């Protein structure tokens, strides 16, 4: 995947570029808004990571400029500004996701993966499968190896999100934002408790677990 990184803090830029390259992506970088915008408009990228405060054109204007020229690639904003109003501003300006500095690299990577997955057209899916686990999106029924699994509405949405991102790391914040549609810090790790409930329903009594904890990052659902 080709990723554009627009970040003026060179130390952070170097780290970001190196990390993304190590994860197997092709990365171009820009240190200011104008260079970032002209790169975004002249080369094909799959996703752009844009810092909110940049010399020259600031992050919001870079993304607004991209959208104006019909460039619709997913954009992840990085911001060192205060969150409450800036998050809304960033998303309004055409950003697809927003991450506040300092961030964990795994969180950034998970979000980039999720953005690119969102972009790949999969058609309207009515069924999700991971190994012998199936989720019918129309009847809202879950089965593993043919056995029905009873799920609460929220557990269903949690499992659906995990399965839509099967094979990808999904962080706790991503789950809170997508499944619960809230963005705040829930003190205790309440998401972990929800996951262990779900795990008890889908993995208990089966030889191969599907729902895995990724240390220091979050969770991933995958067959083997």
């Amino acid at each position, binding site marked *: 995947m080709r990723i554009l990184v627009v970040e003026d*803090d060179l*130390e*952070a830029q170097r*780290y970001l570029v190196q990390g993304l390259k190590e994860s197997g992506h092709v990365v171009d970088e820009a240190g200011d808004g104008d260079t970032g915008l002209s790169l975004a408009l002249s080369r094909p990228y799959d996703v752009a990571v844009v810092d909110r*405060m940049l010399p020259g054109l600031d992050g919001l204007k870079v993304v607004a400029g991209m959208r104006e020229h019909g460039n619709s690639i997913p954009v992840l904003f990085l911001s*060192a*500004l*205060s*969150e*409450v*109003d800036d*998050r*809304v501003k960033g*998303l309004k300006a055409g950003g697809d996701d927003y991450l*506040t*500095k*300092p*961030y*964990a*690299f795994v969180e950034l990577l998970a979000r980039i993966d999720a953005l690119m997955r969102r972009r790949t057209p999969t058609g309207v899916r009515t069924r999700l499968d991971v190994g012998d686990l199936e989720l019918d999106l129309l009847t809202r029924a879950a089965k593993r190896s043919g056995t029905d699994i009873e799920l609460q509405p*929220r557990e269903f949405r949690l499992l659906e999100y995990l399965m839509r991102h099967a094979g990808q790391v999904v962080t706790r914040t991503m789950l809170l934002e997508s499944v*619960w*549609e*809230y*963005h*705040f*810090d*829930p*003190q*205790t790790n*309440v998401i972990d*408790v*929800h996951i262990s*409930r779900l795990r008890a329903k889908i993995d208990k009594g089966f030889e191969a677990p599907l729902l895995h904890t990724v240390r*220091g990052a979050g969770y991933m659902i995958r067959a083997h």
Partner: protein
Amino acid sequence: MLLFAISVTALLFFTYWNTRRTLDAQTDQIIEAEITGLQEEYNHFGLQGVVETLRAQSLHSNQSLYLLSDSLHHSVAGNLDSWPQISGTTGQMVEFDFERPIDGKTETRRARGRVFELPGSFVLLVAQDVHDRYLTERMFTTTLPWTVVLILILGAAGGALMSRNMLQKLDAINRTSGEIIAGDLSRRVPLTGSGDEFDLLAENLNRMLDRIERLMKGLREVTDSVAHDLRTPLNRLRNRLEESVARLNTSGAQADEIERAIAETDQLIATFNALLLIAETDAGTTRAAMSALDLGSVAADVVELYEPLAEERKISLTLTPGAGVVVEGNRSLIAQALANLVDNAIKYTPAGGKVRILAANTNAGVELAVTDSGPGIPLADRPRVTERFVRLEASRNSPGTGLGLSLVMAVAHFHGAELALEDNVPTGLKAVLRFPPSAVRSVPPLKNAAE
């Protein structure tokens, strides 16, 4: 309006009464003077003298009326043809009608005068023609009600016009203030250019707003640069630690050490984020998106989120939602505040206990409460626990930043609400967010409008 009508009527009546009294007094004076003259005549020349004077006076006087008659009302002298119908006693001022030929026609006119007796059973009437005054008076009394009605109509119309004009000007000021309270500090009160008191008020308000906007902007810039200047190095620090642990590529004591440093950094970042959020919401510098927010549905979400955790700790977590408890608020801030309260309640309630969330409309606005069956907070410590970094001895060793309640307090203030810590019945703590009626909205909540 009624007061105005009464005043107008009273004023007109007073004018009428006063004018009539003055005119009557003048007439009476003339009559008294004539009577005194005739009295002297009588004293010097007897009845004959009076008769002669009357005849002489009658010839060249139109205004003064005289009639001397005997006890059977037969005219002896004077310019009145016959004795008029007079009611009232002798010696007092009376009014009566008399007839007089004018331009060949007989006309009934009004007069005012006095009757008194002369020795020898003679009666003398001395009077003044007051017909003109009488006509004016009649005209006045018939037009008075119409005058009052007309004045009332004109007054009401004028008053309505004036107050509408005034209300329009006040309305413009109120509208602008409302928009500013709603968060748009760039708004200004429009000037009409008339230079009146309202314009002066608007100018003063605008000057005040300029100043507030400058201060708020300054404060925002400070928070933004504090955020930026601390987050950037924290970000580098975290990056480097992650890099180091990745480079080690093995697990071991050294890697564990770095992992622990990362965890400490994350704790530091969490504290910093909470502090910044408190500072922003407390100062009201944030322009967090506000919308009509159903507290019942936010409470239901928070209950749903914490229910597994409560179950794990063997605590029953229940919600008693009121119907349509809607306030103007920021969804994620309210959720964060409620989550902090619920998190605290679960943390301090022993197994087997109860935590309840209540959302209700009250007479004084809206209440959002979290009650628990834990040990509660001693009365003396209650004011302290909402201060930043204050943690009570009993909870010193449980996880937490000591900012949870400060943040709840800041979120409350941001919404114009108050946070009260009270005794729960029978035991435990009741933490209540009380929203004033001004924060309450009657419109149905927009789904996910906040974010």
